[in-house]
């Protein structure tokens, strides 16, 4: 049967013939937990993001309004950050707490939490992780080599990557290409050996980076061969592009829908979506200026309004996606897809208007956690909670039984089950 987006939507909340699960051994195996990260590089206007009171019964601030349906099922944390000094360029530590220039001091460099989890969950699924944004990324995803992961920035390419099946002859060509590329890597490896033998210690660091890259590429070739003959789930996003104008909104709708469906069909278990600075948000209601320019609003109310519109738009996109996830009942277990998806929204910058990288806007939802409403991360000592504490809690949720992650000093109290 052809499952297009229309039937997918129709099925929401009602009976839907279940899409075929992608992963090996899907039947009878425990329900997977997924990880969705949504981030921006400029933080949030604090007055409109943080609720005025702590606990469960806060009034939803302007930016978070679209999430009101998640009351008691989400946690907003204030006074948590990575202790970074002010300025742009440090927001890229959002998911790891470490800047690239100091990454060398850590055994896994500045690996970000999404990649750590993808490494854990990735071997069971076709795509260990999916990273998406529009036009360009915000540099939030980093591998254990200290290199940033480039996101898909074109919904069409993401679609091809996730859902497009190759014809028999394309598969043959692709298989041959993988083989040829494999031969080239073999040849290069032979050469690398003699290079390393001659190199000094200082040389070796970069040569090893090169070598690891070659090895990892060889590894993905093997994975790709395994998956090549298995059909991907069918999906249709054309509806988002039928309108006369292709807007930022319908492009993001398409991205979120694709990722939701990829979770549902177990194509992947980790996804990141970014709202870049350079994107033009002028499709969004009332926005006429650049996103970055709006953060430097000089407190002019009309420009703050534009900024809050952009930020509310980001949250609304997320909310729309979570509503869809929440409408899908997990087979063979309790709860909805949302209950089995850890959702993290946030930024590595506190608020662009002050260039502050303290007091990051952080929101967690789903994942089967017992959510706590608005939590003050500031300890009795007056210090903000290291955001990596939350990442310790999240990694443990994925079965990574370690009680440290990068710059953590403990964990964040968020029970699940």
């Amino acid at each position, binding site marked *: 049967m052809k499952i297009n987006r229309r039937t997918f939507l129709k099925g929401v909340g009602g009976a839907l013939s279940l899409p075929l699960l992608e992963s090996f051994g899907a039947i009878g195996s425990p329900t997977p937990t997924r990880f969705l990260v949504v981030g921006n590089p400029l933080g949030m206007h604090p007055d409109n993001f943080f609720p005025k009171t702590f606990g469960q019964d806060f009034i939803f601030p302007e930016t978070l309004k679209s999430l009101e349906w998640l009351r008691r099922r989400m946690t907003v944390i204030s006074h948590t950050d990575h202790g970074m000094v002010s300025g742009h360029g440090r927001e890229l530590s959002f998911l790891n707490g470490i800047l690239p220039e100091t990454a060398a001091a850590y055994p896994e460099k500045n690996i970000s939490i999404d990649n750590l989890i993808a490494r854990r969950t990735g071997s069971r699924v076709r795509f260990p992780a999916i990273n998406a944004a529009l036009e360009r990324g915000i540099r939030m995803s980093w591998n254990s080599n200290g290199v940033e992961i480039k996101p898909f920035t074109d919904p069409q390419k993401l679609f091809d990557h996730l859902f497009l099946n190759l014809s028999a002859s394309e598969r043959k060509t692709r298989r041959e290409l993988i083989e040829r590329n494999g031969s080239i890597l073999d040849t290069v490896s032979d050469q690398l050996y003699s290079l390393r033998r*001659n190199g000094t210690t200082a040389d070796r660091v970069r040569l090893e980076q090169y070598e690891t890259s070659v090895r990892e590429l060889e590894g993905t070739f093997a994975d790709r061969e395994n998956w090549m003959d298995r059909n991907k789930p069918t999906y249709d996003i054309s509806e988002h592009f039928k309108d006369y104008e292709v807007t930022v909104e319908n492009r993001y709708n398409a991205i979120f829908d694709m990722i939701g469906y990829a979770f549902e069909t177990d194509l992947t278990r980790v996804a990141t979506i970014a709202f870049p600075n350079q994107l033009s948000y002028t499709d969004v209601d009332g926005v006429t200026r650049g996103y970055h320019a709006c953060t430097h609003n000089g407190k002019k109310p009309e420009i703050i309004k534009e900024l809050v519109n952009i930020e509310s738009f980001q949250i609304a996109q997320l909310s729309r996606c979570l509503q869809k996830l929440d409408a899908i009942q997990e087979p063979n277990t309790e709860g909805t897809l949302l209950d089995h998806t850890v959702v993290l929204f946030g930024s590595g910058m506190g608020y662009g208007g002050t260039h*502050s990288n*303290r007091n990051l806007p952080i929101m967690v939802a789903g994942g089967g956690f017992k959510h706590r409403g608005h939590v003050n991360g500031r300890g009795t000592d007056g210090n903000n909670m290291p955001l990596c504490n939350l990442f310790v809690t999240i990694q443990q949720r994925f079965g990574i039984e370690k009680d440290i992650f990068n710059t953590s000093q403990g964990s964040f109290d968020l029970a699940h089950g």
Partner: protein
Amino acid sequence: MGKAELTGKLGLWAIAASIGWAEPNVLEQHCSECHNDDDLKGEFSLTDLGTGPTEDNVFFWEDSFDFVASGEMPPVDEVDITETERAALVNFLEDTLRLFHERGQPAPYVPPRRLNNRELTNSIRDVLLIEDVGTHQPTANLLGDTLFAGFDTHGDSLGISEFHIEQYIESLRKVVNGVIFEGVQPAVQRFRVPAQRMEFVGSRGNDRFEDAHRKFDSVDIIDMRKRIYFDNFETVPTSGNYRIKIRGTAIDRAIYDEAATGTYHADPIRLRVHLGDRIRDFDLPDNEVFEIALDEWLVAGTRVQLSYPTDGLRILANGNFKFQFRIAHDYLEKHNPELHARVIRDEVPLAKFRSTAPSHWVHWVNYWQGPRPRLFDAEVEGPYYSEWPATRQQQLLGSEPQVGNAEEILRPIAERAWRREVKRGELAPLVKLVESQAPKLGTIGALKEGIVAVMVSPSFLLLNAPELSPADRFAAKFSYFLQSTTPDAGLRQVAAKDLLKDYAAVRDVVGRKFESGHATPFMEAFPKAWLQLDRINFMAPDPDHFPLFDRKRLSGDMSAEAVRFFRHVVENNLPITEFLEADYSFINADLAKIYDVDGVPQDSVLRHYTFADGRRGGILGMGAFLTLTADSLGTSPIHRAIYVMENLLGIHPNPPPADVVITEPDVRQAKTIKEILAAHTADETCASCHRTIDPYGYAFENFDPQGGWREAYTMQIAKRPGREELQRIAEEDKRLADLGLPPLPKPWLNKPLPIDATEKFRNGESYNNIVEYRQLMKTPTNRHRFVRCFVTKLLTYANGVEPDNYWEIEKLVQRSAEQEYRIIDTIAAVIDSPLFREERLDLPEATAVLAQTPVQ
């Protein structure tokens, strides 16, 4: 630990005693009050100096030397220090640093780094002996490079991942496929393209603009955003040489006012031919048919398109071209009232959509008479080849390649790619690859795999790979520094014969590289990196307040001004101090509007212009600097100060501590930036650094966010709200007053605030305005700092890592001074320096004895 205990801890005595000085006393007497372990002003304690410089603390010594030498420390207003004491202190710090560095540092060493994309595409081009990587955009899939302070050559920032490697393989295959192919020679075809077959990209032939500007024998390009393609030759079918002829003319150059269209009558009306991303521009003559003739190697899949490049025609409304049609209305109303009346009578009432307002753009599309190219027809002929297989293929493979000759074929390619001689037997893995692929892919296909493998190799992708001989390594570094590509055989030979051993020889080659234009990549890339021109659109001036900047894309003009100035200094081998001290720059009519100067020809060409008022000239007056350091609505003296310090004077202030609360700028309040920032001088934690930083920036306060001159702050003045809004505000104020809170700000009542661009440096020097500030930048101290900073930036660009040998840089500054700071001589001195050559630093005999004296 307070001051009293410091004496014992501070082991500087040891050095002082060994060389017979007592200056640590001076240091302690005048500096320990603010710089002790309890009071870390400027985040520095005297104990950071340890018992003398070491690898770990030499940074503190260098900073101390710089601050004391400039007279900024100890600050004149706060510390009572005699000139003799100050001079003694400078000598002490200088000698200590010199001794440390001359004691024999390990040879500077530059680790391997990945080629950036710019270097990669140039290198592929030169390895394969072609004009560029190909018009089919084979490298479009590569990841962008991460910059470090503007530099794209920075090793630590140029990461490599499995994703990179895979993209390289894909790109390289595409490039090689555009050079080498099999099969029979394709036949020449001829495509005639009458105007009717010229279509606009992305439209389906129902666009009212386009229909309106078609005649039976021609088509006009009125909208600069649109591109034309040939309906019967949309993409290149087969790789090969193509002859392209296009007939066109320029029309209606000067019908409309320049001010209305934003295009200058004197600017060329240009036709741009896009061959993929290879661009060819032609200036069309007015009203006479001109035939453009191109002869180009085009790769299969290349799109051939035409456009009208102009920075004008975006002046009205929000800058969207369609609103410009209103100019046609205004023109007819004034110059052809009969036609104007007829349109209003006959056409406006028939409009199906949009406004019935007669001046609405939608009614005047048919009457547009702005400057534009008119195209009559075109012809494409190809592919043709001077021989078969094509020459470029034979250059690589020879006329009859065999698998058995794989080593012979690949050797010269690998030597160009790997920047060295290839040893016997070294190509065995590649030969094996070719042999194993030949049964499947055929001889040519297998050899192509070999060529791809040559360039996926770390010896190609990594610069400064360890296997290079010292001579080859030097030649490669030299070539990538100035030419951003792999060294040519000539350069490698000269280096191999030891002919680049001294300054004179290096100077000679550097001079020739610039004269011949080979060093153009450096001339374009270096100023962009050094001046961080990549930041110019990060925070563009607000389009509502600064419409010209947005509508005429002035960020492009400003970047071009900076690069043009740099080229001027190089072409005339001027002193590098010109960047800081010149009273001229290169501006066009648009920049003249921002800079508010007269007498500039009304066109877009950048020309030499001397500023008589002492406010501008050189980098300090450039729009590029002034706008990339500003916010969209306001300016920040701190951002400008930091830019001057870090990029021009080589001073690196500490970033503010993480827990500092930074006040958000509020343009509505009736306060000047100086008043807002008063906190910096009131709060002692901020003040200790900001008293040093801020004087570098306040002088620029007369320059607004786009770099224009202003006599007062006007941004805080807002439009008066309507009556209802005023009523609401009054009620809110009453409510606030009842709560004992201050009323809402009323920005429409604000008066323009005066600008205070006066400040005093901590060494006592002060200025009243930008003119005096610019004079202070010429003091020997600042000039020295600038030269130091410039050679540091050159080394950062050349080595891909910031140099850290203070004393060797100091020697470079001396050598530059000996050559009157002339830029080419300075660049040559940098290349001749041990920091670039990566040679062990000389240990002068005179200091050798001292160096042996055990410290402590």
